[in-house]
């Protein structure tokens, strides 16, 4: 790279050459007020990169605010930034040297805006860390340095700023140089240069002035010129996270951006986590070329077609069949945390790896620390079981569904996780290891239940109390308000479900309405479904059994095999209802059902709000204390569409082959799986994993 750069001396007018010039993204970080924005202003000005009129504009703005000239106003463009004299949000600006194009990323130093620093720094190839020589190494100096490490930035230089404030004293510089170098090495970073500068006066920025004639190393501009752009990871194995599958013009195109390695027509690929295999048939492009490409590499956004119709979806990860991506249902990661409520064991959040997204629960936290603390050697000063805002630590997460990922050390592109909490990105970091054991639902539940905080149960209990005294509309609105994530309402169009749906629609609540179409429902149920959609003007999301599993079930037990044994019946329920329910609820924080306590002895103990550990959410049964009569009265009074089967003695309506009418006086659910004995006649939707059914 350097040879290439050195060969060019003048700014090239030829755009062809421009496209080939390296582009390097550099983030400027450090404690608040140490001079980051000032340095950028100075750099742009001295390299002749400021647009005409900008300098005069900045002078005028400074004068209007009664200040001597402020370089930082170039980037601190927001009125509140100028009023407060600090950078609030990250910004980017271009400049060029004879050999390179640069994007300079300004980052705020103030602790309150650390999320914005991360936003800017995550896009950088290299970093320049500023330290005010008079103030020395401060909290945000260290936190920023540690974040560079966690963001994967390995090229770092240090500028010791405001040398004018210490009369350009070399001893002061040497002390600072030794201290910051030691701290960086602790964090796994080796500074490429440590440079004495005055951003305000220009020493050491572009000019090597006489005030710092004792300095032997590079100026800032020389140090920047030595940084290299990050290259796509062409040498690593193929990793292609699937963004979407499109069906255009009869082609089924799997789309995504290649994170590492390359892919070629004819390659055998394997899809993680399912492990299914196929051969690449084509690489699709638009506009179509005379000869379609046979090959694509790291960094490219591609579309491929396969030789067979696999079930592939967003979140899957494509690799070559001979170099699979590991997958698992729990992982360990080293993370930073930005949210103001601390991350504790038991916290449930959304985990993103590549394009995959799943719910997860923190099962363990280790080595939590504040990178900004000068005395991290005393771990007992910190609560070890939680990671505070702007702190870091190691976490273990149990995931609701398996994801494919690499350890960061093996493949940086697919070895990073992002944590969503309260509807926003709240943290992220590096995958240390994927824990491969393919835990059963019951197993993983046990593992996480031990650590699950009282907090969750306490929240459920508090909500339960708060909502109990309210009417149905208020209960639903209250539950919606209490949760900030997605809420799913599953309906089978029974009487109770219809009443809940009526209230959701009337109030326009943000609730995802879902039905599980098992394929064996009564014709009357489908009619009610359609009638309901028309009445309320909505489309209900239908979730279906997984095709391959269903085909296998029928091949094994026959079309009505469920009548033969209890095991066969449960297998059928599992494939047609329980597994689809898991997908319907994935990512949700709340689940609304139409259960009532007086439906059966089994259901007598249900609560209004409870923790559902299997699906990792709060389950809400707003009609739990209603009687059937009350439900019927409400439906009649409000002309709520009801399934006509209710009139014919069907009280609880499920799949057609497995539901019959009940005689007056029989329990409501007596008509479900009536040929089995005993009272445990549940399909598995509403019981805890591992319990008998």
């Amino acid at each position, binding site marked *: 790279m350097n040879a290439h750069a050195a060969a060019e001396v003048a700014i*090239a*007018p030829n*755009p062809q050459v*421009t*496209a*080939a*010039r390296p582009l390097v993204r550099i983030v400027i970080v450090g404690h608040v007020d140490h001079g980051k924005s000032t340095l950028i202003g100075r750099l742009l000005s001295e390299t*002749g990169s*400021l647009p*005409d*009129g*900008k300098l005069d504009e900045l002078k005028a*703005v400074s004068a*209007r605010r009664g200040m001597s000239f402020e370089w930082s106003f*170039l*980037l601190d*463009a*927001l009125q*509140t930034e100028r009023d407060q004299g600090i950078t*609030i*949000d*990250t*910004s980017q*600006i*271009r400049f060029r040297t004879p050999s390179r194009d640069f994007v300079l990323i300004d980052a705020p130093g103030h602790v309150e805006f650390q*999320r*914005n620093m*991360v*936003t800017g720094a*995550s*896009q950088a190839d290299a970093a320049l860390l500023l330290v005010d020589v008079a103030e020395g190494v401060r909290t945000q100096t260290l936190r920023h340095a540690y974040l560079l490490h966690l*963001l994967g930035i390995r090229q770092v230089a240090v500028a010791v700023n405001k040398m004018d404030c210490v009369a350009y004293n070399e001893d002061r510089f040497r002390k600072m140089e030794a201290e910051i170098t030691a701290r960086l090495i602790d964090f796994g970073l080796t500074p490429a240069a440590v440079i004495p500068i005055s951003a305000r006066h220009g020493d050491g920025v572009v000019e090597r002035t006489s005030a710092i004639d004792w300095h032997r190393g590079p100026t800032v501009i020389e140090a920047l010129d030595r940084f290299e752009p990050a290259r*796509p990871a062409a040498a690593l194995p193929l990793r292609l996270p699937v*963004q*979407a599958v499109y069906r*255009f*013009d009869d*082609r089924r*195109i799997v789309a*995504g*951006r290649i994170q590492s390695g390359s892919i070629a027509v004819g390659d055998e690929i394997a899809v993680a986590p399912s492990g299914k295999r196929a051969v690449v048939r084509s690489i*699709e492009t*638009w*506009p179509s070329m005379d000869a379609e490409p046979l090959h694509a590499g790291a*960094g*490219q*956004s591609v*579309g491929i077609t396969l030789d067979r119709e696999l079930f592939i979806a967003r979140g899957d990860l494509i690799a070559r069949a001979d170099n699979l991506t590991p997958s698992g249902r729990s992982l360990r990661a080293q993370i930073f945390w*930005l949210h103001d409520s601390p991350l504790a064991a038991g916290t449930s959040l959304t985990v993103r790896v590549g*394009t995959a997204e799943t719910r997860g629960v923190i099962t363990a936290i280790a080595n939590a620390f504040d990178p900004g603390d000068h005395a991290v050697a005393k771990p007992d000063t910190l609560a070890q079981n939680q990671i505070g805002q702007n702190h870091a630590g190691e976490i273990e997460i149990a995931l609701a569904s398996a994801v494919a990922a690499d350890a960061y050390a093996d493949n940086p592109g697919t070895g*990073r996780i*992002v944590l*969503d909490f309260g*509807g*926003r*990105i*709240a943290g*992220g970091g590096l995958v240390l290891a994927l824990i491969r054991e393919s835990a059963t639902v019951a197993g993983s539940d046990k593992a996480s239940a031990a650590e699950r905080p009282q907090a969750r149960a306490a929240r459920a209990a508090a909500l339960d109390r708060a909502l109990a005294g309210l009417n149905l509309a208020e209960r639903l609105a209250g539950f919606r308000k209490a949760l900030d994530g997605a809420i799913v309402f599953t309906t089978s169009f029974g009487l109770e479900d219809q009443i809940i749906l009526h209230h959701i629609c009337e109030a*326009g609540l*943000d609730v995802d309405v879902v039905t599980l179409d098992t394929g064996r429902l009564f014709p009357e149920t489908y009619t009610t479904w359609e009638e309901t959609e028309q009445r309320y003007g909505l489309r209900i999301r239908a979730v279906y059994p997984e095709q391959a599993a269903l085909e296998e079930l029928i091949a094994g037990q026959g079309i009505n095999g469920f009548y033969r044994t209890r095991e066969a019946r449960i297998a059928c329920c599992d494939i047609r209802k329980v597994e689809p329910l898991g997908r319907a609820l994935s990512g949700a924080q709340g689940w609304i059902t139409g259960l009532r306590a007086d439906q059966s002895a089994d259901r007598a103990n249900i609560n209004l709000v409870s923790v559902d550990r299997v699906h990792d959410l709060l389950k809400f049964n707003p009609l739990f204390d209603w009687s059937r009569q009350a439900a019927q009265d409400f439906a009649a009074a409000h002309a709520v569409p009801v399934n006509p089967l209710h009139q014919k003695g069907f009280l609880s309506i499920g799949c057609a082959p497995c539901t019959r009418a009940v005689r007056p006086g029989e329990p409501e659910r007596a008509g479900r799986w009536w040929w089995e004995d005993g009272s445990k006649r549940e399909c598995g939707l509403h019981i805890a994993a591992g319990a008998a059914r």
Partner: protein
Amino acid sequence: MDRLDELEAQSIFIFREAFARLKKLALLWSLGKDSNVMIWLARKAFFGHVPFPVMHVDTGKKFPEMYAFRDRYAGEWGLDLIVEPCPPVEAVDPTLPPAARSAARKTEGLKLALAKHGFDGLFAGIRRDEEATRAKERVFSPRGLEGHWDVRDQPPEFWDHFNARLPRGAHLRVHPILHWTETDIWAYTRREGIPIIPLYLAKNGRRYRSLGDADITFPVPSQARSINEIIAELHATRTPERAGRAMDHEAEDSFERLRVAGYL
């Protein structure tokens, strides 16, 4: 991959993320060079299709060449075109300086169009290098219920993970070409053979660098009569791109105020 390939790959990635994560999208087509590149990139992302409507929020004051361009390429590119009008200037915040007030009609038109169609995501062709508050934008930029941009509380966005969860009634601006520069746009337009409005080329020693409403947009001195010449000129010039846009220069904060209220 050269630089244009990298820019293109990132933009396609952004388009596909938005399409996967949002329910009701539209692309804002201002008919200028940037949004034309944006449409081209959408067609690349979706293999020749633009699977969402393309919306022109029309101030009614564009240059005739711009309307001719719109009507021709909406057909040729198979776009699902929506044209929405803007309210009269009297309906706009009277405390804004005159040109900014005139430009703010578009914000009002946009709000009405959003309410009418219920979009939860809008692709907008802004770039960081155009203007200092745009340089602080996110790729997925949430707007409040009134369309407002809360610049003090933008969510973190890192690596290629964007925030797409919204309260009902709010929307996201998605910025697929935020990371491009003016020169990149021209180099890509030339490489791909994307059609342009002739107003961008010099006539009698002047050309438009940025196209807005005819009454508040002015041509700049230029001799560039081809895209190659435009690119060469951009390498030498130190005049900012939006110098010909009156509304940016009326007061220190006029553009910030426009953007906070929902302008692009």
